[in-house]
Structure formats: structure tokens, C-alpha cells
């Protein structure tokens, strides 16, 4: 079953090629817009006395995730693939886990590769880049996992987008705080270990919690039909 599910995810990823490119483009685009709208934020950041850039970076990562999450289960819900999964799968749990993993691969994981470019655009100091990449690597799984819960509950609503945001953004808060803090510490040359532990812990808790909660959420959504 795992193999079939992975194959399908992969085929869908290839067919709708946008899935991979679009989050990247969106992240770069919103960063650009933000810098254009508030150029002074970056000027202040450049002298490193202030720490606006890390916060902006993480906020934009959150938003990108949010937009990608909205469509996480929608196609499967509308086409009936979701109900077939819950009725047919020996272990629906695994199917959900695979789905979340692929979602993370096509958003969070890819964003890690964008760190140098984003750092350049936002004026992050280059010494902070490795820590930023690490922070994203450790923090974004939590975003995908927690976001999946919200996506599962809202997939039945047609106006899901905004409600989803209201549900999951508060859950994203810890990741945002520690993630931004890690970048700030790295910029200031301080140790980032506390934040590494914190982000890992959050992601682990999310991993323990999310698949079950998602499954429950999907069942509720399917019953709405």
C-alpha cells in the first residue's frame, strides 16, 4: 500500500508540475512585495542592530505554507479519493502520514534550498544562513503536520482558506517564535542549540499528534457530505 500511495503522489506531483514551482515562486514574490512595501525594514536590518528580517522571513514562510495547505486534501475530497482511502485502506493512518510527508517535501523542504536567495533579498547576514536553513528544516515539518489537522477539518467548506488560517496560524506561533529567534541568535553570534532543541521538540510533538487528529478531521469532513 505504501508503495502504491507513494507512486500516486509522485505521479500527481509530476502531472501538476506547478506544485513544486509555485510555492517557491510565491515565497519569492511575497518577499519582493514586502521589501517594496517596507524598504526601511531592510535598511535597518542591514546594520544588524535590529532583527526585522528573520521575523519577516518566518512570517512569509508561514503564509506560503498556509496557501499550500488549503489545497492539501481538496482534490482528493472532491474526487472521492479520500472516502475511498478511508473505506478501502488497510491502514488509513499510513496513507495520511504519506500525504503529509509529501506536502512537506513539496513546500518546507524546498524552502530550505531558497535560504541563500531569501537571505540576499532580506539582507540577512551571511553567517546566519546555515542556521536559517537548519531552522527551516527543523521547523517546517511542524507546520505541515499541524497544518494538516486544520486542512482536514476545513476541506469540506468551500470557503476554507480563511477559516483554515484562523485555525492553524495560532498553532504555528511557537514555531514562528523559536524559528525567528534562532536566526536572530545566529546573526548575533550566539549559540542556537536551545532553539534547535525547541524546534525539534515541537516537530516531534506534532508528529505524534497530527496523523491521528488529521484522520479524525477527515472523517468528520466526509460525514458532512
Amino acid at each position, binding site marked *: 500500500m505504501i508503495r502504491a500511495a507513494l507512486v500516486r503522489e509522485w505521479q500527481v506531483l509530476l502531472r501538476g508540475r506547478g506544485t513544486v514551482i509555485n510555492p517557491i515562486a510565491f515565497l519569492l514574490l511575497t518577499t*519582493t512585495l514586502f521589501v517594496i512595501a517596507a524598504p526601511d525594514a531592510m535598511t535597518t536590518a542591514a546594520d544588524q542592530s535590529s532583527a526585522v528580517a528573520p521575523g519577516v522571513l518566518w512570517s512569509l514562510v508561514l503564509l506560503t505554507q498556509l496557501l499550500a495547505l488549503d489545497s492539501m486534501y481538496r482534490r482528493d475530497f472532491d474526487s472521492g479519493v479520500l472516502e475511498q482511502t478511508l473505506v478501502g485502506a488497510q491502514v488509513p493512518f499510513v496513507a495520511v502520514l504519506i500525504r503529509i510527508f509529501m506536502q512537506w517535501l513539496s513546500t518546507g523542504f524546498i524552502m530550505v534550498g531558497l535560504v541563500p536567495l531569501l537571505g540576499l533579498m532580506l539582507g540577512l547576514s551571511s553567517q546566519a544562513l546555515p542556521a536559517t536553513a537548519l531552522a527551516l528544516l527543523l521547523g517546517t515539518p511542524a507546520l505541515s503536520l499541524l497544518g494538516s489537522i486544520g486542512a482536514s477539518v476545513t476541506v469540506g467548506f468551500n470557503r476554507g482558506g480563511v477559516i483554515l488560517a484562523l485555525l492553524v496560524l495560532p498553532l504555528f506561533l511557537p514555531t514562528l517564535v523559536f524559528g525567528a529567534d534562532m536566526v536572530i541568535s545566529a546573526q548575533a553570534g550566539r549559540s542556537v542549540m536551545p532553539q534547535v532543541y525547541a524546534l525539534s521538540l515541537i516537530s516531534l510533538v506534532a508528529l505524534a499528534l497530527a496523523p491521528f487528529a488529521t484522520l479524525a478531521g477527515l472523517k468528520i469532513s466526509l460525514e458532512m457530505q
Partner: protein
Amino acid sequence: MLGASLKRLWHKLGSPRWFFSLTTPWVTFFGWSAALLLLWGAIWGLAYAPADYQQGNSFRIMYVHVPAAMLAQSLYIGMGVAGFIGLVWRMKLTDVAISACLPLGMVVTALALFSGSVWGRPTWGSWWEWDGRTVSTLVLFFLYVGVFALREAIAEAELRARASALIAMVGTVNIPIIKYSVEWWNTLHQPASFSLTQKPTMPSEMWLPLLVMVLGFYCFAGFIVLLRMRSEILQRESNARWARDWIVRRGFS
């Protein structure tokens, strides 16, 4: 009289076959002109033009940067015009034109951005400055990406054609507004460290090669776009007799 023949020409232009035979000599023309002009401009600009008294030799990037930046905008406007014609007169050819301009435009825009930031390193002291022209070029790149993503997302050719024509058209209408607003924004907030808007008073030994390079870039674009359009037409018309005939003739001659 003139109107009627113009109209006939217009409708003929819409026919892939006619377009194909019309453009056969033009491909050769553009190809050779591009090769000659680019070679001439490159040698003149890189080897013979005097070094800039302020920037030294780094200014020679200009011979790539400026033509690329100009072409980037022209190609998008070309797409918008093609889109407009396609939507109003329902010509199938215009979609072929859009699909030919799109990748080239993206590459050229990326080239303008890249060459600009390589140039920015010695002159501005940084790879990137938020300045009116940099921003409008960057946004132009995103406009291209938008059309590209849209085309990727629609499977049916006919609908892909109409959707991308519509979006290219809307984007083109907005290009002047975007440029204007960004320039306005720039003058207000960021007294740029190096102003792009003030034309550097160049000696003619510097800008004449630039002119040649610009012409060369446009000929090159004409060459690539025609080539891509023609191969696309052959592919789409592969069932038609004339297209098969042509392929066979080419194959043997």
C-alpha cells in the same frame, strides 16, 4: 481597395500554412543578421571600446545587460499583443507566438537580472539594490512566471491558449502602471546609490556598439521566436498534407 486587401492579408496571416511559407526566408535573414550583429557588437564593445573612466572594464557588462533588459520588456508586450489579437480574432497562430515568446522572455529577463546583479557587485558594492528598475524587472519576471504556471496547469490546448492570452493581455496593460509606480516609489524612498534613470553621458564609441548589440539581440529574438513557432506549427499540423510534404522535402534535400 486597400482596406480589402489588408483584410485579406490579415486573414491569410492567421493561417498557419501561409505564415509558414511566408516566414521561411525571414528565418535565414534573422539568423544571419543576429550572428553578424552580435559578433560585430561583441568584438567592438569588448575589445575596442574605451574603458570607462570610473568603472574600468566592468561597464562592458552593459553590452549584454541593456539589450537583455530591453528585450525582456518587448517580448512581454509582444505576448500581450498576440494575446489581444488571439482573443479578438480567434487566431490559432497567436498562441503559437505566445508559447514561443514565453520561455525566451523568461530566459532574457533572468539574464537581465543576472547581468545587472553581476554589474552591481563592483558598482553598488552589493549584488542587489532595491531600485526602480530592478524592481520592475523582477516583477516582470514574476509576470512571466505567472503565465508559465498558468500554461502548465491547463491541459487542453485551446483553453490554455485563451487563458494565457487573457492573462498576458491584462499583464501588458499593467506594465506601464507598474513601471510608473515603481519609479515613483524609488524617487521617494530610496535615493539610489547609483541612478539608472539618469542616462550616463556616454561617448559615442561606447554607445554605438551598444546599438549594434541591441539590434543583434532583437534579430536573435526574431530568429528564435520564428524557429520555435515554425516547429510548433509543424507539430500541430502534423496531420495536414502540406506539413508532411514539407518535412519530406526537407528530409531529402
